[in-house]
């Protein structure tokens, strides 16, 4: 079990989803994959497939059109999984929070583990966010007694608009 927990932290495959972002944060996420930030050194691979992914990196304020797709992607990811909201839009909706066609942050649609602020979020901040998410995972993992408890927790926190 310890081995499995350690492997989980050492090999978080990511899925990136743009929910109507201006592409500022997306560019910064792509920068992570470049040799300069080389996120593969943490074992992170960009999988582009919810069924292989452990971490969902979401950018954008979640337009109403994309809301169902975001929920679908989240549900297709096998447990255990993490969600990181990248940027101000993904965290709160930022300048778009009052728009009629926007949900105002991904927390309104799926449970979020870590919010990374910034417009756009800097690559260093995104790495910090992912590492922080993995840390909360580790604590949750080792503090809870049963596996089911860790899996149910996000579902209970789910907020529907």
């Amino acid at each position, binding site marked *: 079990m310890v*081995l*499995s*927990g*350690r*492997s*989980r932290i*050492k*090999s978080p*495959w990511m899925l990136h989803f743009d929910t109507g972002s201006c592409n500022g944060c997306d560019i910064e996420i792509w920068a992570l994959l470049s*040799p300069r930030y*080389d996120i*593969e*050194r*943490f*074992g992170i691979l960009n*999988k*582009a*497939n919810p*069924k*292989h992914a*452990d971490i969902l990196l979401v950018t954008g304020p979640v337009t109403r059109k994309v809301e169902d797709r975001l929920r679908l992607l989240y549900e297709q990811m*096998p*447990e*255990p999984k993490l969600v990181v909201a990248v940027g101000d839009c993904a965290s709160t909706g930022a300048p778009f929070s009052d728009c009629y066609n926007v949900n105002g942050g991904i927390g309104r649609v799926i449970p979020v583990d870590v919010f990374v602020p910034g417009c756009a979020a800097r690559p260093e901040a995104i790495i910090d966010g992912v590492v922080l998410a993995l840390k909360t995972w580790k604590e949750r993992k080792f503090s809870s007694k049963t596996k089911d408890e860790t*899996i149910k927790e996000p579902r209970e926190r789910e907020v529907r608009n």
Partner: protein
Amino acid sequence: MSMDLAGILVSAALFIFAPIGVGLIMGIDRKVTAHMQNRVGPPITQAFYDLVKLFGKRPMLMNRGQAVFAVTCLMMQAMALAVLVAGGDLLVVFFVSGAGSVAFVLGAFSARSPYSYFGAQRELLQILAYEPVLLLVILLIGYDRGSFVVGGINSSLLPSLILALLALVIVLVIKLQKSPYDIATAHQEIVSGPYVEYSGPYLAVTKLANWFETAVILGILTLFFWNGNVAISVAGKASIVVIAIFASQIIDNITARLTKERMVKFTLTAGILLVAVNMTCIFLVRQGVL
């Protein structure tokens, strides 16, 4: 094929350590690739972290057939490796491993997903490309030695079969899912092809099957060197594997993905040509012409 206790122990150890070795090779492969691209790269044990993590995830299936085919594929590849390390018949190794590849394709076809279908079709084309070449190389080994039994090979194949070794490197590039022939698992194009509908433990099973498959092809490569002295023999075998993997890695890093038509065309022409020239040479040497 009479075997004593020591022989059985050596075979069992090889069977257990070969896939572990392949996992390490994959880790080193990623590290070296990262350094070639001026990156730091993941630790060399990364492949094991990935595998253990996948086994620890919650199982999710599209249908039951997926799991059946994944496990069949793993068992076939493991059986092929078992026959190889036990010093069995190369043809049996080839056909059992081939059946495993077909089981994997069926697993990909069993899920109703366009990417999975694309991947399965492309995997079939890959099999069409490398399988004849691999079979011809094995037939050539049989022609050269008069037998397909691995245990009977007690001198290096390298001097007489050097062109066949080159043909095997082409096969290796496809089997290791590397550019320019990572047609089926093309990540940017069709996500990960036949793997796309697998997740968690079942993905881990298919990955493990791939490790065994790679161990089989690397095992065939090790036959090209043999020496009476065990230390020299092991060193020679290891260096052939290292050189072949490094060559495939360089090819991976300096080429872009080609189309599936070009893969089939090139692999069949170059592979069959290399084997044919090699066979002609062996024939001429036997006739005393060369």
